C-alpha cells in the first residue's frame, strides 16, 4: 500500500513539473513586458526606465531560461504570482477572494449531483430494463446533452424573470447577504451544475450496482435473512460506491469547467468569472495564476482519489 502511494506521488510530482514548465512557457508567450506583470504597478510608475532595468535584473529576466524557470517556480510556489494589470493587486490575493464562492458553488453542486445520481442509479439498477430504467438512461443523456449555460439562461428566464422566485445574478443582494439570501442566489446555478454531473455519475452507479447485485456475497446476505433494502444499502451499494469515489474526485476539475460558464451566466463572483473577465481585459497574470491553480487542483484531486480509494477499499492493501 505504501509502495502504491509512493508511486502515485512520484508520478504526480513529475506531472506537476511538466505542467509548470507549460505554464512558464505560457507566461513567456503572453504579450507585454514581463516586468510589468511581475512588479507592483505603484512602484513601476514611480520608477521609470532605470527602475525597470534594475527590476529586470532583479527578477532574473536576463538569466538563462532554466534559471528563470527556477526563479519563477520558487516565487509561484511561495504564493508570488505577480500583480493584476487591472486591479493592480497581487494575483494571489485576487484569486484568493474568488475561491470561496467557487468552492461553495461546486460543493453544493457536487452534493446535489451525487444525491441525484445515487437515487437514479439505484432506481435504474433495481428496476433494470423497465420503463424507469430506460427513462433514467434517456434523462442521463439529456443532462449531458443540454449545455449547462443554456439551461442556466433558460432557468433565469423562467424562475427569475417570469416567476420571480429567485434572484437572477450575483451571490447576495447588496445590503442583505444573510444565509437565506445566499441560498436563494445559489440554488439555480448549483442545481444546474449538479444536474450536469448527475448524468455520468448515474451511469456509474447503475453499472456498478448491477455488477454488485450479481455478486455472491449478495446471495449470502439474502440467505442470512436480510431484506431487500438491507441487502441493497448495507451490502451492494456500499461496494458499488467505492469506485465512485475515484470518479467523483477526478470529476472535480471537470466540474470547474461547468462552473466557469455558469458563473458567467449567473454573475457568480467566483474564479471562473474572474478568469473570463480577466481574459476580456487582457489581464494575463491573473489568467496564468488561474492556470496554475487549476494544475494544482487537478493534481490534488488525483492524489485524493488514490488516497480515498485506498482507504475505502480494504482490498487495495493487498496489492
Amino acid at each position: 500500500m505504501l509502495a502504491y502511494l509512493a508511486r502515485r506521488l512520484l508520478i504526480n510530482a513529475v506531472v506537476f513539473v511538466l505542467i509548470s514548465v507549460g505554464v512558464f512557457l505560457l507566461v513567456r508567450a503572453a504579450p507585454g513586458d514581463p516586468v510589468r506583470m511581475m512588479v507592483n504597478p505603484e512602484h513601476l510608475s514611480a520608477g521609470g526606465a532605470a527602475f525597470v532595468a534594475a527590476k529586470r535584473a532583479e527578477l532574473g529576466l536576463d538569466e538563462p531560461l532554466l534559471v528563470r524557470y527556477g526563479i519563477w517556480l520558487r516565487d509561484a510556489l511561495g504564493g508570488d504570482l505577480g500583480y493584476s494589470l487591472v486591479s493592480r493587486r497581487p494575483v494571489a490575493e485576487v484569486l484568493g477572494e474568488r475561491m470561496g464562492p467557487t468552492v461553495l458553488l461546486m460543493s453544493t453542486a457536487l452534493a446535489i449531483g451525487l444525491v441525484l445520481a445515487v437515487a437514479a442509479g439505484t432506481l435504474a439498477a433495481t428496476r433494470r430494463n423497465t420503463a424507469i430504467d430506460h427513462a433514467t438512461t434517456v434523462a442521463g443523456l439529456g443532462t449531458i446533452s443540454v449545455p449547462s449555460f443554456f439551461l442556466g439562461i433558460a432557468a433565469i428566464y423562467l424562475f427569475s424573470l417570469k416567476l420571480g422566485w429567485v434572484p437572477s445574478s450575483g451571490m447576495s443582494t447588496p445590503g442583505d447577504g444573510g444565509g437565506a439570501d445566499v441560498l436563494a442566489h445559489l440554488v439555480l446555478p448549483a442545481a444546474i451544475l449538479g444536474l450536469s454531473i448527475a448524468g455520468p455519475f448515474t451511469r456509474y452507479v447503475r453499472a456498478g450496482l448491477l455488477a454488485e447485485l450479481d455478486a455472491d456475497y449478495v446471495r449470502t446476505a439474502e440467505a442470512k435473512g436480510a431484506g431487500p433494502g438491507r441487502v441493497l444499502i448495507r451490502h451492494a451499494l456500499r461496494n458499488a460506491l467505492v469506485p465512485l469515489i475515484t470518479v467523483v474526485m477526478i470529476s472535480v476539475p471537470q466540474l470547474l469547467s461547468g462552473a466557469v460558464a455558469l458563473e458567467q451566466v449567473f454573475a457568480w463572483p467566483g474564479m471562473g468569472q474572474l478568469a473570463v473577465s480577466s481574459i476580456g481585459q487582457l489581464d494575463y497574470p491573473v489568467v496564468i495564476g488561474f492556470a496554475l491553480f487549476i494544475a494544482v487542483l487537478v493534481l490534488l484531486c488525483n492524489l485524493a482519489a488514490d488516497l480515498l480509494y485506498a482507504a475505502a477499499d480494504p482490498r487495495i492493501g493487498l496489492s
Partner: protein
Amino acid sequence: MTALPALPRSPGALAARRFLRNRMAVAGAVFLTAVAALALAAPLVAGHDPNAVDLAAFREPPSAAHLLGTDSSGRDVFARLVHAGRISLLVGLLSALAAVALGTLLGSLSGMFGGPVDAVVMRAADVVLSFPSLVVIVVLAGVLGPGTALLVLVFAACNWPTACRVVRGLTLSLREREYVQAARAFGAGRLTVIGRHVLPAVLSQVAVVGTLLVAQMILLEAVLSFLGLGVRPPQASWGNMLTDAQNLTLLQTMPWLWLPPGLAIALTVLAVNFVGDGLRDAVDPKGARR
C-alpha cells in the same frame, strides 16, 4: 409451425439491424441528417445574408420576412442559425476526427510495442484526461487570443485519450490472435500489422468513441464561443449567438434571439448522443447494456 430464425449474417449486417431496431438512435440519425442538410444548404435556405446588418430592422420579432426575427444588429436570426450550424458541426466533426485519429495512432502503437512506449503513452493519457479541456482552452485563448483553428487543435490535444485506451485494449487482445501471430511470423513488421490487421478491426469501436466525442466537441465549442473564447463574431456559431442572452432585458423580452440556438445545440448534441449510444449497443451488444 413457428418461423425459422433468420440465418446468421455478417457482423456488420447484424450491427446494422440492431442499430435500426433502436428507435432513439434512428430518430437521432434522422434529425442529424436534417440538421446537416440545412447547414449544408444554408446559403440556399437562409433567405438573408447572415452578416447583413440592417439597422432599420433591429430586434424585430419573428415575422414572414424574418422567420426567427432579427438580432441587435438587425441580422436575420434564421440565416445566422443555419450558417452557425455549419461552423458548429464542422468544429465538432473536425475536432472529434483529429482526436480519434491521434488516439488511434497512439493506442495502436502503445498496444503493439508495449514496454516503455506503452508506459509513457498511458501515463500521458491519464494526465491529459484529468485536465478539463475547457479550462485549458480558456487559458490558451486568453493568452494567445481566440480562434477556430486553436479550438480544433486544443480539442484534439485534450481528447485523444478515450480513443487511445479503447484501441490499446483491442490491440493487446488482437496481438495474441493466431492470424496476427502468423502474420508476424511471416515477417510482417509491427507497423504493417497495425495497418493491415489492427486498424480494420478497431474501426467500429473507434467510430463509437468518435461519435460520442462529436457530441462533446459541439458542446465545448458552444460554451467557449458563448464565453467569447471560441468562434469570433461576426462569424455566427450557435454558442456565440447566445452571448447576447446575458443581457437580462433581452433575455426577458426577445426569446427568439436565444431560444433557437440553444435548442439547436441541445437537440443536435442529444441526437449525436443517441446515435453514439445506439452504435455502441449495435457494435457491442453485451458490453454496453448489462
